[in-house]
């Protein structure tokens, strides 16, 4: 493994960036109290920038490190996260879901659940959401610590402690306001920092053709067909024929439907960006416009991983190895940056990485703090205290959130691909929640008791499935098999996650329907106005020019995604 050596120029760019975001965050803090203020005041900005903010909101370590890692581990099939997963889900959000979100009085997921169902459903969701945020920030913290390890040569324990201190300092220096700028800037930083890497990497191996040839060696070494790493659909007929170990049904249902729709429809961090738009039509257009750049993201984030694994197999030792002898795919992107970029542009690439890690951690720790203090502590543990009391609790929660993130960062070290771990968390939290949302929004008969017990059943189903299965080569523990017996062994962590998600979603969906039919409705039609599809006034798009109509934009987006799927079939 080559260590990354930074020059003075690289540190200069890094320092300028953080001085810049912290500086404007601090200078403008009187005007900008929350992300909502910021985006509301930005109502005059062009719609395409609002769209960029929408995709930037999920552009954390998960995407830049996780997609590169998945590209290296699973090859071109990783593109399904975009062309089968994110893109159709974003169209669905824009065309069908946005009218409720924009029209309802809810400003967060727990709030929607409270308005639509009842208090206990909201409480359950607040707890699972708090757990999810610590895992998300733990994953970013792991990525930052690994990067520091690679750059400074320190060991992981020291690096992870340093990461914790950096994040704490960042949040207390006003990272909250800075995070908002960070979010929009980081989209451009990642594009500008990664594009030279992709271009140089592709040039080095002789373009897409040269890359496919090298990936053929990667595939045949493991006993797959030569095109298994360079095509997306061709080897999906059987789970044994592709590196992800999943067949088309698990892919389309698990990733395409449950996990992706679950993520994009229930992640308010992302949806909020669109809700702050100046009108309902602009809000619906935001995810649709965002889908265009999102579609080409695989070339920016997945390709570096594919290039890295090609190099790793051609010249052994390109990627560092884990204790179990598998390559640490998480380091694919940082190692590629160090390999191809000289001092200068290297600083730009590292700044892009650091920016996405910092905003990922700051955002999640802050969300944890808010949910713990207001949705759990104030609501259930100690209501009726003074504001100062809750503020102190908020500060303590920030520190606790960081300590929990450090623990989650250690849990992450068990995964050679952070995307495997992230989808595991999503399978437990988002998959059942998506079934609850779907029924809550489209079936007014769904009751509060049913939603609560459905969520409980769904989460239990995920745990049961996870506890009884293991990915190939793993030992019982965080990767599953903890219930004693192992009923089934999946070829990969990702295949196991897709099926956990399918089980969780189905269990929640069925349980919610059955219990709804057995219980009495707790909300009248009047109370559900704006919260349920059939009780919400329809949108009329007829008087808009065709290129502004959500439905037509949605069809264009889906057609382009179809073309991409066919090209890389």
């Amino acid at each position, binding site marked *: 493994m080559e260590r990354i050596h930074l020059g003075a*120029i690289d540190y*200069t*760019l890094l320092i*300028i*960036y953080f001085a*810049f975001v912290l500086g*404007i965050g601090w200078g*403008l803090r009187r*005007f*900008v109290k929350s992300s909502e203020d*910021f985006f509301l*005041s*930005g109502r*005059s*900005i062009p719609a395409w*920038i609002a769209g960029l903010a929408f995709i930037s909101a999920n552009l954390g370590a998960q995407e830049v490190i996780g997609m590169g890692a998945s590209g290296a581990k699973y090859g071109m099939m990783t593109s399904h996260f975009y062309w089968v997963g994110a893109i159709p889900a974003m169209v669905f959000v824009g065309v069908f879901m946005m009218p409720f979100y924009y029209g309802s009085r809810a400003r967060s997921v727990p709030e929607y659940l409270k308005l639509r169902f009842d208090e206990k459903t909201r409480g359950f969701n607040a707890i699972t959401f708090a757990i999810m945020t610590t895992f998300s920030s733990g994953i970013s913290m792991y990525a930052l610590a690994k990067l520091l390890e690679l750059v400074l040569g320190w060991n992981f324990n020291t690096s992870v402690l340093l990461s914790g201190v950096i994040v704490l300092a960042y949040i207390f220096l006003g990272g909250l306001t800075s995070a908002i*700028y960070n979010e*929009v*800037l980081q989209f*451009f930083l990642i594009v*500008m920092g990664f594009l*030279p890497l992709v271009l*140089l990497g592709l*040039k*080095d191996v002789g373009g897409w053709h040269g890359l496919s040839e090298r990936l053929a060696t990667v595939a045949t070494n493991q006993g797959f067909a030569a095109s298994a790493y360079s095509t997306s659909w061709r080897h999906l007929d059987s789970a044994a024929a592709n590196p992800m170990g999943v067949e088309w049904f698990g892919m389309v249902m698990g990733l395409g439907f449950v996990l992706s729709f679950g993520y994009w429809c229930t992640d308010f961090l992302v949806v909020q960006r669109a809700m702050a738009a100046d009108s309902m039509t602009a809000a619906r257009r935001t995810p649709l416009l965002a889908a265009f750049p999102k579609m080409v993201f695989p070339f920016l984030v997945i390709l570096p991983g594919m290039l890295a694994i090609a190099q790793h197999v051609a010249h052994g030792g390109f990627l560092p190895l884990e204790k179990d002898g598998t390559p640490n795919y998480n380091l694919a992107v940082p190692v590629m940056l160090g*390999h*191809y*970029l*000289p*001092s*200068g*542009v290297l600083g*730009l690439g590292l700044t892009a990485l650091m920016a996405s890690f910092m905003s990922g951690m700051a955002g999640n720790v802050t969300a944890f703090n808010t949910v713990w203090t207001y949705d759990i502590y104030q609501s259930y543990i100690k209501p009726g205290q003074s504001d100062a009391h809750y503020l102190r609790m908020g500060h303590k929660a920030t520190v606790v959130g960081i300590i929990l993130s450090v623990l989650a960062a250690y849990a992450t070290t068990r995964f050679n691909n952070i995307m495997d771990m992230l989808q595991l968390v999503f399978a437990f939290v988002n998959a059942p929640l998506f079934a609850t949302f779907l029924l809550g929004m489209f079936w007014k008969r769904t009751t509060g008791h049913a939603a609560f017990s459905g969520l409980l059943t769904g989460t239990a189903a995920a745990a049961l499935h996870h506890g009884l299965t293991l990915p190939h080569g793993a030992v019982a523990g965080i990767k599953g098999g903890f219930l004693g017996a192992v009923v089934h062994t999946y070829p990969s962590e990702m295949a196991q996650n897709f099926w956990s998600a399918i089980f969780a979603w189905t269990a929640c969906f069925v349980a919610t329907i059955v219990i709804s039919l057995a219980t009495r409705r707790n909300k009248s039609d009047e109370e559900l106005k704006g919260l349920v599809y059939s009780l919400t006034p329809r949108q009329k798009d007829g008087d808009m020019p065709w290129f502004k109509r959500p439905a037509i934009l949605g069809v264009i987006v889906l057609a382009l995604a179809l073309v991409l799927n066919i090209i890389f079939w």
Partner: protein
Amino acid sequence: MKLDLRYPIGLLFSFFGLILTVYGIFSDKSIYQKSLGMDVNLWWGLVCLAFGLAMLSYAVRASERK
């Protein structure tokens, strides 16, 4: 108060572009072995600079129209 996102984006990239371009002109050429012999700092610096300036002029023109 109206905050136009194009200003911070334009400022940051103009500044980064300028630094990279100047560094690309004066840096030791041996460091470009990594980047297949190309002076990526110079070329990518110019790309960043052009992008930053385009953003700034876009922002300025938009505010003049008001």
